């Protein structure tokens, strides 16, 4: 136990923490935008997988992680078009479409992976930004300040979304669409347009989160690799009620639970992998039990809006 607090150990812990937290952060930010606008996207798991797969495929083709990340985001947007057309425009059931998106994403990525990469299983070399000066600091330097450039982009994006949601007219429209869509309509805004933007942005972030998972956290795509992160993102969103800093805090907590597994292994303590995978869910369940009373959910969430309808 004494060598648990060495610099190498802390560094490994932080690396694992970031690897777990950032995909969840990105996906939850996307889901938050959607949920704030009144769209509950249950298909986020499928969107992340599609993002992870397209990111992987594009990176292999272009030899650039950055173009791959963009590819992942585009993949997420493409699958989200399904939700956009069927739900936002036609007003069809979000739960059913969400489940369809999850199944479609899981199925198609698994089939395509089997077809194209199952034999060769190419892996992606890690992309790291060593920040001059800071990367020399023990422990923190070799983890945080040597993280991928995408890590910093993700942090920046989260800050931008936090600002947009809480401080701009656009954010106000999003929240109006999710709280009282008729008032947005009355004020001359368009609920359809606002929700469409939110759904596509949600797809962008979820796809990006998936791509981060496959390209940077693990360095390769494997079928079903998200393993429930999408569902955790939905819970994170529900608990954070639109506050991005809470999203970030919970994502970090999730990263810590994931890193704990790595840490304990390094420390020579064997913990069943199931316990590590269950940990975040257990935490969520405990939180839900404690805060059951105060989990606020907008009355119009997941309700399609039709202009002029009563």
């Amino acid at each position, binding site marked *: 136990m004494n060598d648990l607090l060495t610099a190498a150990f802390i560094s490994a812990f932080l690396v694992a923490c970031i690897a777990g937290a950032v995909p969840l952060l990105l996906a939850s930010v996307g889901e938050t935008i959607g949920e704030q606008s009144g769209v509950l996207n249950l298909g986020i798991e499928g969107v992340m997988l599609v993002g992870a797969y397209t990111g992987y495929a594009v990176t292999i083709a272009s030899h650039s992680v950055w173009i791959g990340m963009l590819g992942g985001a585009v993949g997420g947007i493409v699958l989200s078009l399904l939700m956009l057309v069927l739900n936002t425009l036609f007003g069809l*059931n979000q739960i*059913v479409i969400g489940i369809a998106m999850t199944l479609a994403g899981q*199925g198609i990525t698994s089939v395509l992976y089997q077809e194209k990469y199952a034999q060769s299983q190419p892996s992606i070399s890690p992309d790291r930004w060593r920040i001059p000066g800071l990367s020399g600091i023990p422990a923190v330097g070799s983890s945080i300040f040597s993280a991928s450039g995408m890590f910093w982009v993700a942090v920046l994006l989260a800050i931008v979304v936090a600002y947009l949601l809480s401080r701009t007219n656009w954010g106000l429209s999003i929240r109006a669409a999710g709280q009282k869509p008729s008032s947005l309509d009355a004020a001359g805004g368009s609920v359809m347009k606002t929700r469409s933007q939110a759904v596509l942005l949600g797809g962008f972030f979820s796809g990006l989160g998936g791509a981060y998972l496959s390209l940077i956290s693990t360095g390769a795509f494997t079928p079903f690799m998200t393993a429930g992160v999408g569902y955790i993102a939905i819970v994170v969103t529900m608990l954070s009620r639109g506050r991005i800093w809470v999203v970030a805090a919970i994502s970090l907590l999730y990263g810590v639970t994931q890193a704990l597994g790595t840490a304990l292994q390094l420390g020579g303590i064997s913990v069943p992998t199931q316990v590590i995978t269950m940990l975040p869910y257990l935490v969520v*369940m405990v939180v839900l039990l404690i805060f059951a009373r105060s989990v606020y959910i907008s*009355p119009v969430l*997941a309700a399609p809006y039709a202009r002029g309808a009563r």
Partner: protein
Amino acid sequence: MTTERTGTRRAVDIVVRSVLPVVFALIVGGIILLALGKNPLKYYGDIVVNGVLGGNLQNSLVMMTPLLLMAIALIVVFRGQLWNLGYDGQYLLGAVFVGGLAPQLIPKIGLGPSYIALIVLSIAVAAAWTLVPAWLKARFGTNEIITTLVMSSIGVGGTGLLIEYLFQDPAQRTPQTRTMNTADMLPYIPGTKVHVGFIVAIVAAVVFQFILSRTSFGLRLDIFGVNPKAARHVGINSRTMTIVLFLISGGLIGLAAALDVMGQWGYVRNNWNPAYGDTIMPFVFLARLSPVGSIPFVLFYSIFATGGTVASIDSGLSTDFNMVIVALILVFMTITEYVGSKRELGQSYLPDELRDAVRRPFAALTGRSAQA
């Protein structure tokens, strides 16, 4: 939707609108197969050959047992506007207790008592796993979609722990339970290779059809489903109803698990998850939440899954291609639903009350009235 039409015309409409999504899904699935460089006709032909012909239909009927029970389990909660999406965890926890205890219990107390004890245990375990989401929903209105999904993930992890630390077969290196002797598994229906669980599933479908459409409980359930507030005024306790529905749903899933493990598999392996619930969900809607009505759909999917597994291996595809087809059916179902409701054809797949299912609990939770 109140247009007068003859019974046959209406029946034709319903059949067309139930079958059309499946047809479209198969067509688009065929296009995807073409794009992957496979021959769709050969693929679908393979499914028929391996799912129906030469006695393979019996394999499909074996597959149908857990799927049909799972379908009834979903129908019961969906009718009450509740979403039990925790089926994976409930199924696996029931299954692991049956798989883990059966080989030790049968030599001690004999076959018959073991079957009954294990089925009861599996039902109890799966039903108990719904209790926390049901209570949170009943007490605080906490969104049951989220809580059942979370509990499901915990259940799946718990299954792995139970296998590795309690039920591990010492003779095996891979984490799995002991395997039941073939002779100890559920008996076949005479003259077939289909175990008696199939009969149980069919009987359950008929019984639940009767309960839902011909008893006062069925009526109370429908009233509760349409409007929980109105239900209170006719003396239905919403909290009790919520918990009862979840327990029935979980119990049926436990029954499915027990029959499936004792009739088909004989053991439970770590990281094994048949995910019956996800795949059967579209068919539950296509059958308009009718237990007996879901039988042909479940049969169709059983053939598709049984034959499809072989067909995909034959053509070098991942067996997950089935999921793509199911997703396509879901998408086309909602589209047909949209077109249908616009043209006021036949009957809606999703009753209005179910469509509002997500909205209303949120409204109740916040004490505000839901506004469309």
